[in-house]
């Protein structure tokens, strides 16, 4: 048996992702890495650093800033960018609102999440990026289960799920017409648990939001939201101190927390391994309708 030459599943996933990130650098003129500040995009930057070591990552990071980010996210982002020595581009939703590109939602459930799409597409166009690397995973949501590694987008940035290019072996077709671009998802095959285990095994630094901490929170439709200036509370929604952590990090307006005592990575992994609710179960943006992710993706959402 030649079993000395087998890889653990995490090492195999790492190798696959590095291969795809290198393909992007080789096949595209002007790629960019979409950075949200969440653990998946932190993993992406970490894998990109591995892919090109000892050279620097040969493309910039793009952050679509809704203006409703957790302050921890922005601090972490700026430190990471400095450490990696990469260029950071910021697409601002606030600017998009100010100049009339998008209109702010109103009311209690108002969120800037949906507004990111237009700003993202505008940023990609402005930077003339021909490939946008993203940290989406197929296990996150059912519409994403059918996503390719190299996902072709038309000149409007739209996804056409019924007419995707077949993707075989490790051969990737990056051909496109002028004005079109690609979204590339190197960590497609990772699950939430894989990401946590890998980050722990590699000792990758993460924002404190992912570990259990005390925070002022309130509960809306069964979801624990962080109290902040950017969310309007209903009169009956009471703020209380809770011990929570976040499983995904998006906008403060739509990212739900879970009650947790997991204050170390090891405890987080244990919690993830035994948990019974999906990661995006706390995302109110996915709950708007049964096919909300698919609808947003068709329009060019990441």
């Amino acid at each position, binding site marked *: 048996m030649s079993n000395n030459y087998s890889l653990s599943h995490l090492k195999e996933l790492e190798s696959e992702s590095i*291969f795809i990130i290198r393909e992007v650098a080789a096949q595209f003129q002007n790629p960019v890495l979409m950075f949200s500040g969440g653990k998946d995009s932190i993993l992406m930057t970490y894998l990109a*650093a591995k892919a090109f070591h000892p050279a620097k990552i040969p493309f910039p990071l793009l952050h679509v800033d809704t203006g409703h980010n957790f302050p921890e996210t922005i601090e972490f982002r700026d430190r990471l960018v400095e450490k990696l020595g990469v260029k950071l581009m910021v697409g601002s939703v606030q600017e998009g609102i100010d100049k009339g590109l998008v209109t702010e939602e109103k009311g209690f459930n108002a969120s800037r999440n949906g507004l990111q799409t237009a700003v993202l597409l505008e940023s990609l166009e402005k930077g003339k990026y021909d490939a946008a690397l993203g940290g989406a995973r197929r296990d996150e949501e059912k519409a994403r289960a059918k996503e390719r590694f190299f996902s072709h987008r038309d000149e409007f940035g739209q996804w056409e799920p019924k007419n995707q290019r077949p993707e075989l072996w490790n051969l990737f077709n990056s051909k496109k017409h002028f004005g079109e671009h690609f979204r590339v998802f190197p960590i497609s095959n990772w699950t939430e648990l894989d990401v946590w285990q890998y980050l722990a095994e590699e000792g990758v630094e993460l924002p404190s939001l992912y570990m259990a901490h005390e925070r002022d929170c309130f509960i809306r439709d069964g979801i624990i939201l962080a109290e902040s200036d950017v969310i309007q509370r209903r009169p009956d929604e009471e703020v209380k101190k809770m011990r929570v952590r976040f499983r995904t990090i998006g906008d403060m307006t739509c990212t739900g927390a879970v009650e947790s005592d997991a204050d170390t990575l090891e405890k987080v992994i244990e919690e993830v391994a035994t948990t019974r609710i999906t990661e995006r*179960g706390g995302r109110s943006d996915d709950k708007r309708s049964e096919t909300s992710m698919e609808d947003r993706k068709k329009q060019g959402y990441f």
Partner: protein
Amino acid sequence: MSIDIQHQTELLRFTTAGSVDDGKSTLIGRLLYDSKSIFEDQYEQIKQTSERRGEETVNLALLTDGLKSEREQGITIDVAYRYFATPKRKFIIADTPGHIQYTRNMVTGASTANVALILVDARHGVIEQTKRHAIIASLLQIPHIVLCVNKMDLVDYEEKRFEDIKEDFSQFASKLDVSDIDFIPISALNGDNVVNKSTNMDWYDGSTLMYYLENVHIGSDHNLIDCRFPVQFVIRPYSDEYHDYRGYAGRVAGGVFKKGDKVMLLPSGFTSTIAKIDTYDGEINEAHPPQSVTILLEDDLDLSRGDMIIRENNKPDIDQDVEVMICWFNPKTLQERGKYTLIHTTQEVRCMVKEIRYKLDINTLHRNLEDKSIGMNDIARVVLRTTKPIFFDSYRRNRNTGSIILIDEATNETVGAGMII
């Protein structure tokens, strides 16, 4: 669940093929459900949908029906990837649709799979589609095939029915290029022999499907003999610290490379020695498939993307004429004398279809020498002429260096996938 065990798990990729009503989605739903890979909110959602539709039980098939139009039609239209893990292995399922117009998806799902699950309905036995699935699994050289005889509950769990189907399929499969076939009688709906051993079929003493998936030996699915390293990207840091660093980044496509190995470079034919195998985590002594590494050579030679590093005494074929079994994916037919972009490992060349030898009937394996109109979902043997030599092995010997895709130069679509003979 112990975390330490999880760290050491292997990755197994498998594909599922079946006709529209064979209960494939139910089987996958069952695997996910019985292995406790379904989350409460997912289960709640499909339970509500089942109730709304007036179904008696929770329809596990809904777990895998992703896209809107699929749920409306109750069929799967595209490859969907699913994930679950047991303490022994992590699994990636390429869930592919079975009806004829989506052969391309089946081929796609099969291209990276270690195992193919082929479903048949116990009431109908081996039908034309079953044969097509088996032929595709054989063409794509999936190392292990399992024929799942589903809906055993609808034939009263009868042993004879199972044995007849087994006999039938074995006879057909003897004409194929597959070495490892297993048969399991199941009921995906009721869970018999999926994860838990069935109490309805005492006559069956084989393993459950889950036991099979957890234990099938996949250690020899990679080629560890022929050293092949297609150069993917050249790493040049241009920094003071790494002034003269010139690393060839890539993924090992075959064989085991060691520091100090004498190597040959293609296409130049120059020889050199491996000075260092580098990774972010430091230098390593040897590299094997499917590792992504960076190779540094002792001599200052000019390699670029599409070149290949090999061992001197073990060369691939180096040729401009390539014999290929091609699966066609596009409504626009394959053109004899037509020109396409060809992608092979990290190399991209142009090619012309020199000759269409025959069309393969994928229900009977019959070689049709007359009909040379190769349309969507057809499979044919062709000769391609490339603009410059490519470095390849037969697909049977190495999936990485024996596979190609063809791209239409006008539409940019991937129109064909080929296995080099």
